[in-house]
Every structure is written in C-alpha cells, then in structure tokens.
C-alpha cells in the first residue's frame, strides 16, 4: 500500500460506505413520511420565534426529543410521549438538542401555555423558577418611562422591578409564540412510532 491513489481511493470508499449507511439510508427511509394529522404548520410569527430560538442558542440547553418511558422517566416528568420522525416534519433546522441543562421543551406549550409566564421567565427566569441557571434575556426587552399602549408591560415580582415599564420586543413576543406552539400531544400513527428508536 504505497501509492497515493490507494490511500485516496480507500479513504473515499470508506467515507462513501459510512455516508451510505448514516445519511443515504435514513434519507430514503424517512423521506416518504407525512405529517401527522394533528401537527399544524408553523405560522409566520412562530417561524420568526423559532429563528430567535436558534439565534439565542436555546437548543444548547434544551432538548426537543422525549424518550420512551421504558428508557427514561421523560413522560413522568410531563415532557410528553416519545417523539417520532413525523413530529419534525416542519422543522428546519431540526432542533433535537443534546443537553438537558434545562428541561425538554417538546411540549412546553402544553405544559406552560401562559404567555405572561413565558415572558417573565425569559426576562428573569429566577422570578418564576427559583434556582434556575437560565440566562436572563434582558436584551429581548426594553425599559420605557411611559406606559406603552400596544403591549402589556411585564408585571414583575417586587424584587425584580426596575424604574419604568419593562416591555417585550417583537423578538420576545415571537419567541413566546413559538414556545407556546410546542405541543405534540396529538395521537400518532403506528407506522410513525415504529420509525423511532425503540430498543432499550
């Protein structure tokens, strides 16, 4: 094995094999999957909110992939049934996440549908969740001297109040629209359930 071409051809063959198994086969298997009847496409505002989720890097601390109850107690924590490939039909980029520094958010809209709660939590997580280590996203809000007419200023606990009114920006409102839309509690088809990892 002394020739440059042997190494290059060998290297390309290896990569082709690996890519076939890890990318092409899943592509072929998952491509025909249709969205479940209960899953709605995102609205404009939700899509903008999803982009904010990506910009702020929410997925580096929050997963969106509840596991099977036989594997882990995700369902008992109220995070929802095991997710299937069909649940991600409208997701681009897919935001499965790799960490649970914070809880799974695949069904946060069902668990915590209050937009007021979500806004306060974004502005100052510790105001509603003692001990939280989530960053305070103060820059998604602005502080004004006059009471705004179009949006409701945040009603913060005394400890966290500042002089003036704390008003969510468009980004914060969009992000909350996205968060409360995360509700995958609809029933799934049996075929979809079989397309997820079921071994334990």
């Amino acid at each position, binding site marked *: 094995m002394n020739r440059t071409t042997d190494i290059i051809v060998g290297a390309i063959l290896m990569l082709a094999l690996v890519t076939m198994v890890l990318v092409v086969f899943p592509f072929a298997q998952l491509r025909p999957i249709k969205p479940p009847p209960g899953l709605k496409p995102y609205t404009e505002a939700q899509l903008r909110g999803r982009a904010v989720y990506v910009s702020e890097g929410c997925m580096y601390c929050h997963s969106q992939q509840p596991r099977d109850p036989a594997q882990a107690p995700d369902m008992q924590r109220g995070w929802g049934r095991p997710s299937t490939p069909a649940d991600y039909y409208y997701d681009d980029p897919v935001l499965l996440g790799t960490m*649970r520094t914070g809880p799974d958010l695949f069904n946060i809209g069902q668990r915590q549908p209050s937009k007021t709660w979500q806004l306060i939590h974004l502005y100052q997580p*510790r105001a509603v969740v003692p001990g939280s280590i989530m960053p305070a996203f103060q820059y998604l809000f602005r502080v004004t001297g006059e009471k705004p007419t179009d949006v409701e200023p945040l009603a913060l606990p005394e400890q966290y109040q500042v002089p003036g009114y704390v008003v969510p920006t468009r980004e914060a409102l969009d992000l909350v629209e996205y968060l409360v839309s995360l509700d995958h509690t609809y029933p799934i088809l049996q075929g979809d359930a079989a397309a997820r990892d079921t071994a334990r």
Partner: protein
Amino acid sequence: MELSGLGVPILVAVSFALSVTGLYIFIVALSHNLLWSQDEGANVIFPPGEENAPEEPAASGEEARGLRAVTQGRQAQEGELADRIAADRSSATAVFVFLVLGALWLVIGSIAGLIASLTIHMPDWLAAYAPLTFGRMRVVHLNVVVYGWVSMTEMGIALWLLPRMLRTELAASHYAIAGAAFWNSGLLLGVIAILFGWSDGLEYLEIPWQIASLFVIGGALTAIPLFLTLARRRVQHLYVSVWYLGAALVWFPILFLIAKTPVHFGAEQAAMNWWYGHNVLAYWMTPLALAAAYYLVPKVLGRPIYSYNLSLIAFWAQALFYGQAGVHHLIGGPVPTWLVSVGVVASVMMVLPVLAFSVNYFQTLRGHWGTLRFSPTMRFVAIGAVSYVLVSLQGSLEATRWFNTIVHFTHYTVAHAHLGLYGFVSFILFGAIYFAMPRIVDYEWPYPKLIAAHFWLSAVGFGIYFVALTIGGYLQGLAMMDAKRPFMESVALTVPYLEARSLGGALMVLGHLIFVFHFLVMALRLGPRRDAPPMLGLQIWGGRTL
C-alpha cells in the same frame, strides 16, 4: 417506510459483517506475525544521519544532553541533514502563517469558552449584551476552537511534516497561504454572524453556508501543495502519517459539502448532523493529530515505532468504525432503531483500533519514559496520546445504551468532548508547535520556564475541568433518571461542579496566554539567546545539533 421491513435485519447484518471483517483482518495480521515485524516503512522518517539521533528542538542544551543520555542516542552530524533543512526551509513561511493564526484563534476561542462557562453559573452576568449570552458564546467557542485553533494548527503541522516525510521540498506553498486567507476570512465572518445571531442552527455547522463556503475554497487551496508535494516525493514508502494527512484532506471537504447541501430534513437532518459532528473528529481532527503523534514520538526518541503494521491496521479500522459511531448520539431519539444500533456497534468496535494504537504507543515508549524529563514535546504528546486512548474507550462506554441513557443529556458529555479536543488533540498540537517552531523561525524558545508554566497550567486546569464535569454530569444524569427527584434538583446539584469547571478553565486560559505570549516573543526574535540556535544556522553559530 420501504426499508423498515426486510431492510432492517439486512442493514444490521451488513454492519455486523463489516465489524467482523475488521476483526478478521486483525486476527489474520496476528497469525501472520505481521504485527511484530520491523517494517522498513517505520524507518522512512530516519534518513541517513538521523538514525538513532533524537530530535527535540524545544529542549534546552542541558535537556538535549539529558535526552541523548536516556535514549543512548547520538548527535546528528553536520552535513547529514541537508535534505531535512531544505524541507524545513521550503515550508517555513506557509507553516508560520498557519501557526500564528491558530495561536490567535486559541486565545479568542478559550476566552469565549471561559465566558460561556461563567455565564452558566452566573446567569445574570452580561445579561444585557446579546452577543455575550451563553447560547452565542458557546457557539463561538466551539467554532473558533474547531475551525480556528485546531484546523489552522493541524493544517500548518501537516504542511510542515509532509516535506520531511517525503524528503522533498514543499511545492507551491503560496496556494496554502491563499487558502489560509479564505479559510480565516470565512471563520472571522462566521464568528461575527454568530455574535449577531445569524446561525444555521446545527451543532458544529452553525456558520451560515453562504460564509462557510469559504472553508471549502480555503481547504481545497491548502490541499494543492500537499498533493503536488506528494507527486514529487523522493521516498519509496509513504509513512503512516502521510496516510492520515492525505485521507483527512480528502475527507473534510466532502463531509462539509454534503453536510451543508440543503437537502436534509427533519429527523434525517439529525442523523446527518451526527454523521458530520462525529466525523469532523473521526475524519478531520483525529487523523491529523495522530499523524503528528506518529511522527513526533519516534523522532524525539530517535527510534522507530514498535510495530509499523499495527499502525496501518489501526488506520483502516479507525476509518471504518469511527466513521459510523456518531449516531449513538441519537440513542432513544426519533430515528430508526437499526440506525442507532449501527452507531452502537461501531462505537464499541472502536476498541480495536484504539487497542492497536495503545499497544504500539506504549511499546514504543517502554523503557524510555525518562525522555519525559528532558523533552517538552514529549510531555505534551504523551498526555495527548494517553488522552486519545482514554477518550476513545470512554466513547465506547458512552455509546452503550444503559450508560448513554444516564449521561447523554448531561455535562458528562461535555467533559468527554473536551478530553478529546483538549486532552488529546490540543495537547498533541502544543507538543507539535513546541517541536516545529524552532525549526520554522530558526530561533530557540526564549524561556523554557514558560513552557513548563504552560504545561502545568493546562494539565492541572484541564484535570480540574474534566474531573469536576465528569462527576457533576454523572450525578446530574442519575438525578434526571429518578422521577421522584424534581428536575430542578438535577440543575442545583451541578452548580458547584460548574464553578469548578470555570476555575479549571481559567487556569487553561492563563496557560494559553502564556503560550501565545511566548510564541510571539519567539516569532519576533526577542528574549535571551540561550544555548544555541537549533537548526538552520548550524554552520553560522556552530553549537549544538539535534
């Protein structure tokens, strides 16, 4: 769903067959006594004049004498090194450009990492500044370290090693410098994009494709001199490091192009993401770091590696198994079971190439551990090689379903990733830079004590980092697995460990600042001129030859 019926058992069978083939090659090699023959190939990096002559440009005069004593090595003779000097001279300018850029990215990347680490346990700190929020600093840290510090330094070291291993001069090095310009513009723009919230949103692939295309151009331009030099080689045999270099330079652009092609969707995109995320290690950063290790250890010892054939087996086994390992990141996720199983099987099979490497490495060093006392390069590379073995075995463990279930979503995985990219890759690169720089700038490291300070800050800092996050992450995982314990308990218990991580990280950053300061002092030829210039000026200053 056409593949889910009969297809699944077939795919699992295929992956099993591939694994068994690897094992078969291994056993055949054993039975044919291939592993213990001292192949000519191993000696190709020791041309006449360099046999049994330890080379350690980072050593002071006293250390160099000690090194020769413990290895019973001799001094390379003047006049015998003409080829090597010509090789080093031909690559010096281009390599210097890559190493300087790598060092500067190291500073930026590690400061971003420290900010991310601090904000995670001080969540109200810097809360008014969008670019400094955890979710952006973490991304800047990862991308700068992967595509800046590691990629630049590895390409630089590759450019430097190749002419030496092929006993020829580096051809068309200006293409590599142009490549560096494209690559670094891409990274700089990418970092700015991320700071302002523009991200493609997939881990390891955040830099928007419009900008990231500069990496492909830069990488391709850098590969031109490497392949032109290969064509002009003056050795019969291609040393194993050349295999790693050549393969990695072919692999990376293909990986990156496929990953950035906008055809991926939903759950398939997740599979692709882990195919890429794991293979940017398997097919890019790991092979380039191993290439350096396979060169540096024998050169410092002045003797060839223990078993050359073993290194070749490890190369192909690694290419096969490591490449498929990434999908274990989706255990319990919304992708087909067969796919996850392929990842688990391949990850466990990684034990084979890693065992091959460790047998080889420890047998080469057996009886020569004394060199650690005298060789700064060896100290860094030794930790790097040990970390490679540990991180790979740990990876195999983490890919098993029961262990993955506990630690997957925790800080344990972050510690593991750093054992790979810091303990293994970065330590080998530090060693490689300490080795190569005196040859590149024809000047000694001015302050040996700063090398020691960097080593201990990095080693101790990383030790704290790794131990703290490993324990904290494991406990976090146990807490999450127990439904009776509220989720917030799993958050609260990690805080002291996250603080310890910041402490360890701060020591690492301090070590890097010392390293880069020393690097720049040397590059500007400031500081005391100590024992003797290490290489090119042999005749000019007389003095020591290594």
